[in-house]
């Protein structure tokens, strides 16, 4: 009789095996999707070709997504490292956009050198406040932050929607519910063909790498994530550290909102996030919460997001890209099993017989 046994790996699989398994999963997913596409009557090589060409043909569009996703994922990552399950990036993004817009709309005459930093700060603060509310609720009442941050998303979206249809409605838009466009001064300038948010993004990646890896604060965040009781025991003020980390988390998501509002929308709408606040949870997880990897994962995802438009030109429904995102992550999720668990096959062993 042969038996298969599954055991949790005590020693994790080697780093190389780890990466290989993941790449294998992604390749497997692409093959799988390719077969499905072929069955459906599309030419998979053509589809993949279009997707691969996307970053060259529509670099700006891909970068817009990358800037949003990376910044959101960085925000999510610092909270997740602390095991503070912030899935409220979406709401923090909108509140950040709101903060930036409030500044842009009320002080649009200020020169860009003053106005943009003010918008930056407002975006950070508003996003931070939106994240710190669930953190305070957690600290005070021990209510699950996963659920509270999730709820806060919808409150934020409804709030933006309220502004758009109510007090901030542009009277010049002839009845259409739309927030007025920002003044020129409130728009992030382009650098090398892409809005300058990419510089902010790269700086943030560097800063977050250093903060998480080399500072006492990053160490404290990791210790709290591993065990809050140990952190307290070591004399850390866990509530204070948690609040600061969550403000940074929400603040970063707010910055993503500021950049999108300022550079891309040049205004705000109640659908400007396109659900990326949730996608960012996936990219952050995919990157194992490591800032440099987040950049790579976000770029990859952005190609998929952007290529939806090119596919539509080929008369292929753009929803294919959503399905592809889903299938790829499903495969990666499944592959995690082989990284975390070890499957052993015990060959025929002496004297063992099949029980009746």
């Amino acid at each position, binding site marked *: 009789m042969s038996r298969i046994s*599954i*055991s*949790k790996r005590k020693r994790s699989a080697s780093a190389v095996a780890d990466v290989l398994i993941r790449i294998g999963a992604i390749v497997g997913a692409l093959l799988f999707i390719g077969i499905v596409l072929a069955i459906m009557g599309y030419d998979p090589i053509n589809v993949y070709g279009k997707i691969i060409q996307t970053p060259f043909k529509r670099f700006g569009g891909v970068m817009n997504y990358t800037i949003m996703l990376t910044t959101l994922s960085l925000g999510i990552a610092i909270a997740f490292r602390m095991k503070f*399950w912030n*899935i409220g990036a979406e709401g923090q993004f909108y509140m950040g956009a709101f903060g930036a817009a409030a500044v842009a709309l009320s002080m649009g005459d200020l020169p860009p050198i003053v106005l943009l930093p003010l918008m930056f700060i407002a975006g950070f603060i508003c996003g931070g406040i939106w994240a710190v509310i669930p953190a305070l*609720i957690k600290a005070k*009442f*021990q*209510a*699950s932050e*996963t*659920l*509270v941050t*999730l*709820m*806060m998303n*919808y*409150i934020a979206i*409804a*709030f933006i*929607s*309220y502004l758009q*249809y*109510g007090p901030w409605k542009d009277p010049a838009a002839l009845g259409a519910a739309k927030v007025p466009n920002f003044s020129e001064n409130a728009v992030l300038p382009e650098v090398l063909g892409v809005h300058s948010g990419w510089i902010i993004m790269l700086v943030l990646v560097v800063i977050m790498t250093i903060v998480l890896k080399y500072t006492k604060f990053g160490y404290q965040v990791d210790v709290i994530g591993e065990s809050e009781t140990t952190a307290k025991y070591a004399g850390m003020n866990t509530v204070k550290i948690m609040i600061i980390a969550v403000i940074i988390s929400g603040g970063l998501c707010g910055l993503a909102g500021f950049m999108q509002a300022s550079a891309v929308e040049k205004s705000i709408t109640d659908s400007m996030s396109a*659900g990326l606040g*949730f*996608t960012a*949870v*996936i990219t952050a*997880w995919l990157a194992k919460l490591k800032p440099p990897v987040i950049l790579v994962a976000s770029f990859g995802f952005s190609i998929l997001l952007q290529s939806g438009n090119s596919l539509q030109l080929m008369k292929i*429904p*753009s*929803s*294919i*890209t*959503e*399905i*592809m*995102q*889903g*299938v790829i*992550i*499903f495969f990666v*999720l*499944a592959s*995690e*099993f082989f990284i*975390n*668990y070890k499957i052993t096959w015990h060959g025929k062993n002496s004297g063992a017989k099949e029980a009746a």
Partner: protein
Amino acid sequence: MDIIEQIGLFLQSAVQTGTPILFAIVGGILCEKVGHMNLGVEGMMLMGAALGFTVACATGNPLLAMLAAGGAGAAGALIYAFITVTLRGNQVVTGLVLTIFGTGVSGLIGSFVSDKQIPQTVREAFSPMEIPLLSDIPILGDALFSQDIYVWLGLIIAILAYFYLNKTKLGLYVRAIGENPGAADASGINVTMHKYINILIGGFLCGLGGAYLSTAFLTTWQDNVTAGAGWIAVALIIFSTWNPLKAIFAAYLFGMLRGLNYKMQGWEIQIPSQLLTMLPYIATIVVLIFIAMRKKKENQPPKALGESYFREER
């Protein structure tokens, strides 16, 4: 129209608005009771909506449409169950991905049927039926006894789910799994099987809820037809403290809130509708704080919610 009739009609539409969400809440409760938080409700609803619509158009058979919708939701749930139960993957990520995936699948299916219309047979089957005599009772007659089959089904399913979870041995087993899968396993309960069954039934119900929106409310396909109903359901699962009977209340209350939203536009009171939209979410946060404060052990989320179970864990 006199005021009584107005109230009756208002409640009638509130119940209808609440019904798809009721399906999803009950489905979500079944899933969370075995310890699995499924953020893929929206995705499963959309898959059910799309396939239900397609089959309704293709066959004109209302029953087949419902089965297909439930089947689509259950298929989504099967992916989720395989990854989170068998492969012990991260539940939050899997759920979120399921929503993205489901949106994509629904969009793809929808792109094939965008020019189709729900056939008359299906439309009739899903239109409100007046129950003789009972439907003449003021207010209640309109609110409860002039409703379509989905409304009734939703009510029955919620009551059955309550009975199943709280009065049957399987329900006791299920609750034990959600609280302490190790204890349930050591008692000889087949943890994996119960998890699969509940997650799949949950997915089936979510699919049905989605199909109600696409086949009974509308006659042509509309992309993203659920418009966030799945997320409201995720909120209301908590609002109803994992109790299917309270879920009825939660869903209908939400329906009234939505209805109020429209009504208000004709009234003199001017509360912006978006602020009313916030209410269920704010209420859910308040409930979360409240149950956390009261610390009553019975109202807490299932203790093993979100954790994978591995028997040979050491």
